[in-house]
């Protein structure tokens, strides 16, 4: 089997079979990660460029590790796109990629659509490693992989995404993917951080946390950017914490096998307490492990593997 698309730009429009294929492939790669010699020659001779125009530690390491495990040749570029003249670098990059005969490009960028721009201009396959507030497909895949490991199937699972939905690419990719796999998705956050008409995506919308948490199987907690306060979207971080921080008390009536997820990096004590983040419901470190496996799967499948 092979993926239907040449690129992985988002989970919007990706069908159930392709998501299952990526998750199945990731599961088999995960087995490699448990071995003493954690390397396979699957991508030998394939060149990957990691273009990080936005600071990222976790995602970049995860991709780089995935590439090493698959024996790909990879080069990484890391630059805060706010410190370079907008536009210039991306266009130059396009030309360089063409000149260097790169097969796969992994791109993280602060502007929504930057990976689509690349995909239009270059022959290489493009993997979106997060574009602005648009999508972050490999994050959603690793979230789904983690849930599938725990529950077997996502069918009917009640997943609540809590926090800054408006600015979250993680939320968007999760909503597309989870809905495709049959989960029931809710979002919860202050009205000012809920994007317009989000319910048309097929999610329930809550502004009060306790209402949202009722009957939840999974809580996916999003990071709060402190600049939302200066943008006038929140009166104060203090008030946000009082209303939306996931605390042990808030989870008093939670299901026994509740799952707490967080895409990281965590603001401990802001969107989630230390106690909950490190507590028994948390799968936050499993997510990190699965991130490598999912990225191996995406790289492998997009490089023509699995045919």
């Amino acid at each position, binding site marked *: 089997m092979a993926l239907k698309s040449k690129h992985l730009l988002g989970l919007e429009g990706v069908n159930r079979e392709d998501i299952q294929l990526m998750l199945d492939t990731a599961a088999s790669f995960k087995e490699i990660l448990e071995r003493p010699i954690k390397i396979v020659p699957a991508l030998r001779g394939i060149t990957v460029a990691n273009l990080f125009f936005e600071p990222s530690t976790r995602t970049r390491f995860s991709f780089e590790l995935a590439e090493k495990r698959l024996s790909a040749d990879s080069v990484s570029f890391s630059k805060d796109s706010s410190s370079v003249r*907008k536009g210039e670098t991306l266009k130059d990059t396009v030309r360089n990629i063409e000149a260097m005969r790169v097969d796969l490009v992994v791109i993280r960028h602060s502007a*929504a*659509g930057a990976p*689509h*721009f690349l995909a239009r201009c270059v022959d290489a396959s493009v993997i979106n490693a997060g574009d602005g507030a648009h999508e972050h497909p490999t994050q959603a895949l690793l979230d789904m992989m983690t849930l599938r490991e725990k529950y077997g199937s996502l069918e009917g699972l009640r997943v609540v995404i809590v926090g800054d939905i408006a*600015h979250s690419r993680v939320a968007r990719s999760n909503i597309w993917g989870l809905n495709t796999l049959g989960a029931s998705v809710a979002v919860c956050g202050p009205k000012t951080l809920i994007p*317009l008409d989000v319910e048309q*995506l097929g999610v329930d919308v809550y502004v009060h946390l306790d209402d949202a948490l009722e009957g939840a199987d999974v809580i996916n907690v999003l990071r709060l950017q402190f600049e939302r306060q200066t943008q006038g979207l929140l009166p104060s971080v203090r008030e946000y914490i009082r209303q939306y921080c996931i605390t042990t008390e808030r989870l008093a009536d939670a299901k026994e096998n509740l799952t707490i997820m967080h895409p990281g990096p965590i603001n401990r004590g802001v969107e989630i307490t230390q106690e909950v983040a490190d507590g028994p419901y948390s799968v936050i470190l499993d997510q990190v492990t699965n991130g490598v496996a999912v990225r191996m799967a995406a790289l492998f499948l997009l490089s023509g593997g699995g045919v």
Partner: protein
Amino acid sequence: MSKAKSLWIKSGRVLDPGSGFDKVADVLIRNGRIVSIGAVKKPPVGVELFEARGKLVVPGLIDMHVHLREPGREDEETIFTGAQAAAAGGFTAIICMPNTNPPIDNQETVQFVCQKAEEAPVKVYPVGAITRGRQGQELAEVADLVAAGAVAISDDGDPVRNSEIFRRALEYASMFHIPVISHCEDIDLRGPGVMNESYVSTILGLKGIPAIAEEVAVARDIAIAEFTGGRLHIAHVSTAGAVELIREAKRRGVQVSAEVTPHHFSLTEEAVRTFDTNTKMNPPLRAEADLQALRSGLADGTIDCVASDHAPHSSEEKEMEFDAAPFGIVGLETSLGLVLTELVGTGFLTLSEALAKLTVNPARILGIEGGALSEGGVADLTIIDPEVRWAVDCQSFRSKSQNTPFEGWELTGRSVATIVGGEIVYGRQEDEN
């Protein structure tokens, strides 16, 4: 001119939206004026013949909203190349906005534009700025601007944020019988937005510009126009709510007119899904309901004009991330085709109604010559082939810039000749795209 030049436009369907004249007839032109409309029995010696059978002969089209970038960004467009694009698009007159660098906010700059315009193939009328430097703080010297040739004032590209200044602008402009053209936008509500705020912006994760950013400003401007009795013209209307506000204002007798761009009645925000920066403009492409409201507003006369908001940008500037790209698209060479295809071809407007939006209405709003066909009148005419099917090809544009979202679109109807002051300034060859 040493000898009288004459042109005989033969057997075209002569359509003058202002008078309602609509007949197959000959038009005889001499010395830049229309001599007669009717059968020519004895053609003058040495007359140039233009066979117009099956073609429409209409008043020269007027685009009352273009950006020509000169002075300042001559790499993107000049007054001359913009006028060439206008001629190729069927326009005999264009009205250029003052957001140049330096801005057209003083007599010298107006004179500069008028001087450049003398060499241009079509008529170019400058709009002066409302405020000095387009800063929204102090009124520009409007009497001077008008004396030098400005036909209206506008800070287009930006709104006049200060309501008191805007009030005084309407009052002051009324002394010279010129309209104030308003770019209606609440800057705070727009914020860092780059597309219409809606379900689509939610999906794309792009910052939204809500419809209320326009509607709040339209409501304010109408209130001020009503209070002052000044003449307000609202540029590039894009939302259903704005159409309704203008409709109500007209019903009350407020002196307000309005224009819409071809892209706002032809495209919706759905086009942005590709992240193509040629779908980024301000105001942004709106929802399907807005598009329908704009068409209804055109049909019932709420919206008086179609104007392209021709905004050339270099490909270097447009080929980048959606957030970073500038707003705006070129429009002079697609405007007529879109009007004929999207408004007339779909039955929203009759041919005469549609052409009025491009001729007599802008002429009346601005008080400029043209926009009509009459014996003794100025010989600015456009000849249109209403049946020809053609594909938009930005490589063939006369404009210096190619930033269009309509590349590859199949349109029906385009100009075949553009006549300014009796001279054919543009004639399309048979095999020419």
